[in-house]
């Protein structure tokens, strides 16, 4: 009797925890749609007549192909904003990329310079810090080597800095090669919800893990906090956490016309490596404990919950079916079994909303989403959850072994083939 009771209680507690996680995921994913007003509030504030800021754009590169770098640089050079410089950041051991970088700098000597990081252990934050020391303009922005910025992005970012008196502005990144593989569709949608909705919810709560791309920070502030953490795998998230604790004003802005376009990792193992790195980075940030300096208990709880989200999400995806199976064959009382099904409600509602979001993704970016795509999205969900869960577990394992080596994501440049329709499309209002 008591053993059965204890087992039942355990199952119920796990089910309720999973339910809380699933509800929180549902809330964050759909935050932007809760209210039509939210959508207005989260968009850009409109162009100002004059340019108020100047931009130093860092483009970190490692083992990149020339055509990819060229496309990225071209989009930065084509910015309508007039006061900008671009610093291509490379590592000294990556000779081919260094060569390409210098060649590009020679082609556009007015705008482009090269920063070579000579530190022994290579990673993105160290390259960024090296480049930061060369920046001259008032705002520092980061663009990954494989990302294509929208032409008017800087102009709009400038206006946001002015009108909202921001210290940091996070723009949106969108993966677009949704047709390439089974996971790329899910991956694209994940970015869509992250930048369209989740980040805004975090911003509302006052605790933002920043992204590493299309992020803009006032240079003085960035220098004052010592730049990026050179030993952290999620240097972007870490910076967000530190600036949140300093209560600096971080603004997140979204407009489908102004997203920076990027591609998904080119293989499943690449995706797993990337996710492991992120998860590990979040764990590092969590372990560093800067978030504990947040002023109120409520904010600390939110920070804790946010930093654990990645793992929660991944584990929930795997645990829900296991819990249900256990409850069905474990011969528990009916109520207990029914409670184990409870997390399935927000999870399936989330999937239903994913379908709506894919519709909106297609509409925003002028992609013709077919019935097959919707089917792939739904059918791929459990598998994708398992991939995320695997990456999270792998990260946990590495964290236990203190293995913080940088696993870089390779890029094939497949997003470039998607750009024709989207850049040619007329801007919408």
């Amino acid at each position, binding site marked *: 009797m008591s053993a059965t009771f204890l087992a039942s209680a355990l199952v119920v507690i796990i089910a309720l925890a999973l339910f809380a996680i699933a509800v929180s995921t549902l809330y964050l994913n*759909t935050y932007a*749609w*809760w*209210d*039509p*007003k939210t*959508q*207005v509030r989260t*968009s*850009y*504030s*409109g*162009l100002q007549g004059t340019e108020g800021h100047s931009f130093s754009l860092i483009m970190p590169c490692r083992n990149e192909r020339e055509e990819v770098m060229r496309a990225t640089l071209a989009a930065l050079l084509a910015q*309508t904003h007039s006061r900008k410089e671009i610093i291509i950041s490379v590592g000294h051991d990556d000779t081919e990329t260094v060569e390409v970088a210098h060649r590009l700098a020679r082609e556009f000597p007015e705008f482009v310079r090269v920063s070579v990081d000579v530190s022994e252990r290579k990673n993105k934050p160290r390259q960024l810090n090296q480049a930061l020391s060369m920046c001259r303009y008032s705002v520092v922005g980061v663009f990954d080597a494989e990302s294509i910025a929208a032409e*008017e992005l800087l102009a*709009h970012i400038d206006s946001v800095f002015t*009108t909202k008196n921001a210290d940091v502005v996070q723009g949106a990144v969108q993966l677009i090669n949704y047709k390439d593989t089974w996971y790329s569709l899910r991956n694209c949608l994940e970015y869509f919800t992250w930048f369209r909705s989740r980040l805004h919810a975090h911003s509302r709560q006052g605790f933002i893990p920043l992204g590493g791309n299309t992020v803009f920070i006032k240079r003085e502030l960035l220098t004052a906090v010592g730049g990026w953490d050179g030993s952290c795998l999620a240097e972007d998230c870490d910076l967000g956490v530190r600036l949140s604790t300093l209560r600096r004003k971080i603004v997140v802005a979204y*407009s489908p*016309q102004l997203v920076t376009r990027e591609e998904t990792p080119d293989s499943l193992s690449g995706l797993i490596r990337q996710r492991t790195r992120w998860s590990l980075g979040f764990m590092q940030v969590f372990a560093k404990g800067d978030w504990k300096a947040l002023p109120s208990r409520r904010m600390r709880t939110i920070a804790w919950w946010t930093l654990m989200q990645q793992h929660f999400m991944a584990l929930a995806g795997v645990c829900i079916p296991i819990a249900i199976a256990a409850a*069905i064959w474990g011969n528990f*009382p*009916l109520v207990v*079994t*029914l409670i184990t*099904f409870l997390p*399935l*409600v927000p999870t*399936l*509602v989330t999937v*239903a*909303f994913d*379908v*709506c979001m894919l*519709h*909106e993704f297609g509409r925003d970016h002028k992609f013709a989403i077919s019935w097959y795509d919707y089917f792939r999205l739904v059918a791929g969900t459990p598998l994708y959850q398992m991939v995320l869960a695997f990456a999270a577990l792998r990260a946990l394992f590495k964290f236990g072994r203190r293995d913080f080596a940088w696993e870089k994501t390779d890029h094939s440049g497949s997003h470039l083939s998607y750009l024709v329709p989207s850049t040619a499309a*007329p*801007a*919408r*209002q």
Partner: protein
Amino acid sequence: MATTELKPAPPAAAGTPGAKAERAPKHRGTAHGPTFNLRFLPLWDKVALAALAVAAAVLSLWNLDGAPSYQDDEGTYTSQAFAVHSGTLAPYTYWYDHPPLGWIQIASLNWLPNLLGLGDGTSIGATRYVISVYFVASALLLYMVARRLGMRIPFAALTTVLFILSPLSLVLGRQIYLDNIGVPWLLLAFYLALSSRDALWHHVGAGICFAIAVLSKETLSIFGPALLLALMYRPKWSNRLFSVVGFLTAGGLLLAFYPLSALLRNELLSGPGHVSLQDALAYQLLNRSGSGTIFEAGSSRAELLAGWLYFDKYLIAAGLVAAVVCLLRPRSRILFVAIASFATPIVLGQGYLPAMYIIGVIPFLALACGSAVDIAWSGAEGLARRAPGLTRPLQAAFVAVLSASLLLMSVPQWFEQDRTLLTAQTNSNWRSAMTWVQDNVSRSDVVLAPYSMWHDLNSSGWNNAWTMIATEKPDLDKQYDIERPGGWREIRWIIVGPSVTANIDSLGLSRVKTALQNSEEVQTFGEWSVHRVINPPST
């Protein structure tokens, strides 16, 4: 250059749409003044809500245990609510007669009035206090829905007054019926669906509330089309796809828990040796002896209608007429749809029709009346604008006609019936019969008792559902054969109330019939009597 097209509304221009919205509300073109919102409640709304809450509470609590008389169905749900306290869904085999969420809600509340000793010490009486909470909630939600439908404060209040004072509503609203549990959830669903903010969570909430309403009483699902219309029928908004998908999936997934629980008990599909959801549905929808058509004099459907009309022909007639008037105003059209879809099975169907079915539509009849009056008032205002000198006389005439018709409606029928409800003691014979049994019958004797007193008797010492047995169980629950292999001969006492003989015929209770034929009347209390089965000859 796309610069200008790209430019989202700058801060300077942001005021313009807002200002425009003030002049011409974007949603629900009929709304008077700002849309109703609980967070920013004008004084008069607060006053109205407070007054209506007091009125509803007084009318539903006053003489609650005196009238109307306790019904078997009330006893059924009371006993099932108490069964939930001990971890099962019913004292006998739960056969999917209704989804259980209704009495699970009762169970979550009825320990309190029991603890406080309300209800003259009877559990059925105490459980009625739970229902009065739901009645008050329904009354307040009705006012809120009326306001969200754009009615003016006095007419929204009138709507609720009709609901509180109508004898039909008050008689049924004081009894322990599952419909009374479901109605506030249904009204909350409408309140959320009619929200003017177009916020997604309101619409998801509407889906959840509707699912709870249907899981409380399945017949309320008839209002699904009207609810969906309430959600959709407005200018297109940016999140419409999300709203509809959220409403349908959240509601649908919650509803799925009912068949899921049946599946987990291996009782979803019909099979030998167990009850099933399939059998129950087939019984309720197909095999249960039908109520005939409404056009056939003397059919039980026609009798049922006559019974409803007996309690309040005015509200029913006025509501039906008002439903047609509601077609004149876009926002009110959902009321027509609600009432029409409710009436369809009554008019066209021939299947079984439960007496409490009417409970679901009473709020909509009241809303239709309030809405029609509001529409008429708007019409009078339109007239007055064309002839400014006539404003005062028109308003006065309107109020006079309205008050006169209300008086005509209420004085002869409502006053008399409501007074009976608030003063009569219709349960004294029920109580005497029960007390006699408690005082004179051995706790080891097998007794048949109508459900209305079953739980109170059983908990007064029998504590065994197969010694103190609800009247229909020897014939309808297969478990009886296992528990009482001697058949009807094991029965020692039969308590006969007003419904017992009718039930014996309509449900075909042959064992009870035989036992009753072999019994003598020992005590009588008005329409109640106690019979002792005499020397059952052994075979």
